[in-house]
Structure formats: C-alpha cells, structure tokens
C-alpha cells in the first residue's frame, strides 16, 4: 500500500470516504420517496449552472450551486402542487439541464472538455482546499440527516400524516431538496456526478435487502458507502481504472451479494417454518 504514501492519493481516498458516508445518509430519504434518480437529475441541471458560470466568467461551482438549488426547489414545488409524478418532473429536469448546459458551454469560449470535467470529476486532482469544502459539506449533511431522522422518516413514509402531525412539511421538503442540490454540485467536480449520485442510491438498495428497519438500513447503507468508496479508490489505483466507476461497480456488486444472500436467508427461514408472515395474506396493497 505504498500508494497511500502519495499525498494526492490520500486526499482522493479521504474525499471518497466522506462522500461514501454522507451520500447514502441523504439518499435513503430520496429512495424512500421514489426519487432515486434526483441526484442525477440535479447534476444535469448543475451543468446549466456551469455553462452560466463559464459564459459570465464567474465561478462555475458557485453558479452550479445556485442553479441546481433553483432546480431542486422547483421540482419540489411542482411535485407538491400539481400531482405530476416525481418521475415526469425528473425527466424534465434531466433534459432541460443537459440541453441548457451543452448550449451555454458551447456559447462560451471553453471547449466541451470542461463540461466532461464537471460530469465525471477527477478524484485524483482533489486539492487540500477541495477536501475542506467536502469535509464541511459531509459533516453538515450527516448531522442534518441524523438529527432530523424521525421527522424526515415520517415525511417520506407518509407525507399526509406528517402534515396532520403539524410538521413543517414544506420546510423539510425544501431542506431535502437543497441538501441534495448542494451535495451533488459540490461533490461532482471532484468525485464526479456519477459517483455522488450513485452513492446516494446503490448502498441503500444493497442495505435494504438484508435489513428489517429504517434505522438499521441507514446505518448499513452508510457502512456500505464508506466500504465501496474506500475499496474503489484503492482498487482503481492498483488496477489503474477510473476510481468513480470502480466504486460504483463495487457498490453494485455488494447489492448483488446482499440481494442473493437476503433472499436465500428468507427462503431458509420459510423452510424452517418460522416465517414472520402469518397465515393470513396481506390484503392491503401498499402504494406510495
């Protein structure tokens, strides 16, 4: 592991670990309310922000943050008002965002390589300054998602019930939207859009194959996120592969493992006859 003696490798590893911990903590709520693809959608909107920044010669990160916050809050308001499905709202976000980004970057002097840089990031060029920003962001996201867990759980589990409980439903929704926008835009330049939006979702999908409750799913998802991110950086350095893609594929491999393992355990349990399902079949159809 002499690779770890190299400073840029250390920074890359730390940045990936922070995102691996924070992204699933936020992502579990997005998965719970069937907005698994929102991270990617917001990333595309952020590209429009990058284009605005390049065109106006302001910091592309700053304009990306602002534009993606507007986009995230906009989607939230569309979802809340019209009963437009989250799915459709996401599609609009995706296409508008990428088209705007390509158009604006094309108008600016920079070539499309800068667009690629923002899309996929470059983990190995993470600077010490980047690390502070990502660290601050990660700490804020994890703290907010843990402190507000009961309220956010109630909200994502049953929004109408949360409303009748007098919870500040809109404020919590906007909190989720803004946190998602901030996480994606700040992390995408270093770790890449693919890595951050995948780490919001894949570890949660992997964890829920073997867990029974929300809290345990969240804990396990964060562990899987950290594990996949750490292993991804190390494996990619040894095998000379792209770190973001390696991390995502590792997380997906964990998902396959827990899915197979989970269903095997359930089948064995059923055969032993101590299935938690009682004789009466569920006659209420669950829906979101």
């Amino acid at each position, binding site marked *: 592991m002499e690779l770890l003696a190299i400073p840029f490798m250390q920074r890359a590893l730390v940045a990936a670990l922070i995102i691996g911990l924070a992204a699933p903590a936020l992502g579990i709520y997005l998965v719970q309310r069937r907005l698994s693809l929102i991270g990617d959608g917001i990333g595309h909107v952020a590209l429009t922000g990058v284009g605005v920044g390049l065109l106006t010669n302001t910091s592309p990160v700053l304009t990306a943050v602002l534009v993606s916050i507007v986009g995230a809050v906009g989607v939230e308001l569309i979802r809340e008002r019209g009963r437009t499905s989250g799915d459709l709202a996401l599609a609009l976000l995706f296409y508008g965002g990428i088209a705007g980004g390509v158009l604006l970057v094309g108008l600016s002097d920079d070539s499309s390589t800068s667009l690629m840089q923002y899309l996929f990031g470059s983990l190995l060029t993470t600077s010490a300054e980047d690390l502070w920003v990502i660290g601050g962001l990660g700490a804020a996201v994890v703290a907010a998602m843990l402190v507000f867990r009961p309220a956010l759980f109630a909200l994502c589990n049953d929004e109408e019930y949360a409303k009748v409980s007098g919870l500040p439903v809109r404020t919590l929704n906007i909190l989720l939207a803004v946190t998602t926008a901030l996480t994606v835009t700040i992390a995408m330049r270093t770790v890449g859009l693919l890595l951050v939006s995948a780490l919001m979702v894949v570890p949660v999908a992997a964890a829920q194959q073997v867990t029974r409750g*929300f809290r345990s799913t969240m804990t396990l998802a964060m562990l899987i996120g950290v594990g996949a991110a750490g292993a991804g950086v190390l494996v990619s350095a040894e095998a000379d592969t792209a770190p973001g893609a390696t991390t995502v594929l590792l997380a997906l491999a964990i998902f396959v493992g827990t899915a197979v393992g989970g269903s095997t355990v359930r089948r064995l349990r059923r055969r032993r006859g101590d299935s938690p399902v009682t004789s009466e079949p569920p006659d209420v159809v*669950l829906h979101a």
Partner: protein
Amino acid sequence: MSSVVEVQNLAAGYDGREILRDVSLKVTAGDVVAVLGANGSGKSTLIRTILGLVPTLRGGIELFGTPQRRFRQWERIGYVPQRLGAGSGVPATVGEVVASGRLARRGVFRFPAKADKAAVREALTAVGLLDRIDDPVATLSGGQQQRTLIARALAGKPDLLVLDEPNAGVDAASQEAFAGALTRFAGDGGTILLVLHELGPLRPLIGRAVVVHDGRIAHEGTPPEPAGHHAEPDHEHLHPHAEEIKPAICEWAPTEQTKAY
C-alpha cells in the same frame, strides 16, 4: 359540551371540482360519529378537508374552537389514513412507524425520550401488536398494518381520533382488535370521527351517524340497524375496496355509481 370539530356550510374539492357542496357538522367532546356514504359520496373528502388535506372552497372549519387555518395543536388529533403509505422498499419496523405518532407532541428538534418509547409500547399493546414491534411492517397482514396505523395515532395521546375506513378489507381478528382499542379510547373520554363503509363490529360504539350523499349530508341520526344480508350474523363483508360498483351502505341511502376522485 366543548366543540371539537365544527364545520359550517363547507364546500371543498380539488382542481376546481367541488366534491363537498354544503356540509355542516358538529362534533363535541366525547362523541363517536360515523360518516357513512357510498363510494364517491365525498365522505373521505369530508374528513380530509377537516384535517386540511383538501382545500376548503367555501365555509368554515373550527378545530377545538380555533379556525383550522390558525390551528396549531395538532398533537390533539390522531389521524388514521386508509392505507400505509410506504411502498418504496426501504424497510421500516412497526415500532419506527408507530414512533412517528410522537412527533406532533415532541416536535422536530427533540430526540425521543423514555416517555416516547413508553407511549409507543402502550399504543402497540392497545392494538395487540406489541410482539411485532421489531418486525418490518411489510411482513404484516393488511389488518395488522391497519392496527399499526391506529397505534401510531394512539401513541400521540390525542383527544380526537379521525379514522378513514379503518375496517375496509380487514380480517375479523383485526376488526375486533381495533374495535376494542377504539372502545377503550372512547371510554376514556376520547372523541372519535370515523368514515365507515359499513358499521360492522364498531356498531355498538357509534353514537351518531352522518350519511353523506352527493357532497351533502343526506341524513343524520342514530346509526341504522343492519338490514338485508348485512344483518346475517356470519355475514363476511370483506370488500376488495373502492373501484367496484356496489350498492349504497344502507337501504335508505341512494346508490352512487361513480367514484368522484
């Protein structure tokens, strides 16, 4: 008697469509009021409007003597929706779902204390599901999920319970279990407002019935006795729910063939 819910000349609906046209209703402390009516009559819309989930078009709603718009003591109301709203696949245990019922009382910023955990266990005991506290809700039967939702509402120790068709499509054992829980709640002085498709085992508990038809109150009074094949003691009335067209709830209420929403 202090007023718990007071609705005056209420009109309500979504997207410019009026589902309720002119409804007035008063529920005082200790009342057990059943809202009856066919599918699409507006009975669920009535309680959803009272709770602020459907916009009011005209008229007024007061909760515990406060206009609904300014009402903030939501911990006094326990709401039991028709369905558990978790379908995304992220597992949640029965205990976690019921613990949501404490949020109105505890607020967003405080962590659960001993009293919260005790209230969750107490509520689960009341519906006979304490042994399932650590099980994922998705492994429960429909009736047990419904009891989980009632426990969630009871956990907040409300003064008023509002239930939306709690016995729709639910097995007999669960119907009995929550009839027991509601009887104890009413016995302790609690007020209950519930939408029902049929009275079933809750019949002895209901003090007053309101029949909604076509967005208006068609009848108000003591609950009707079962008639026709509903009256047979072994009559099992397990509806698959909603969509299908079926006769009205009781012989003297008109039949509604359409579902309004």
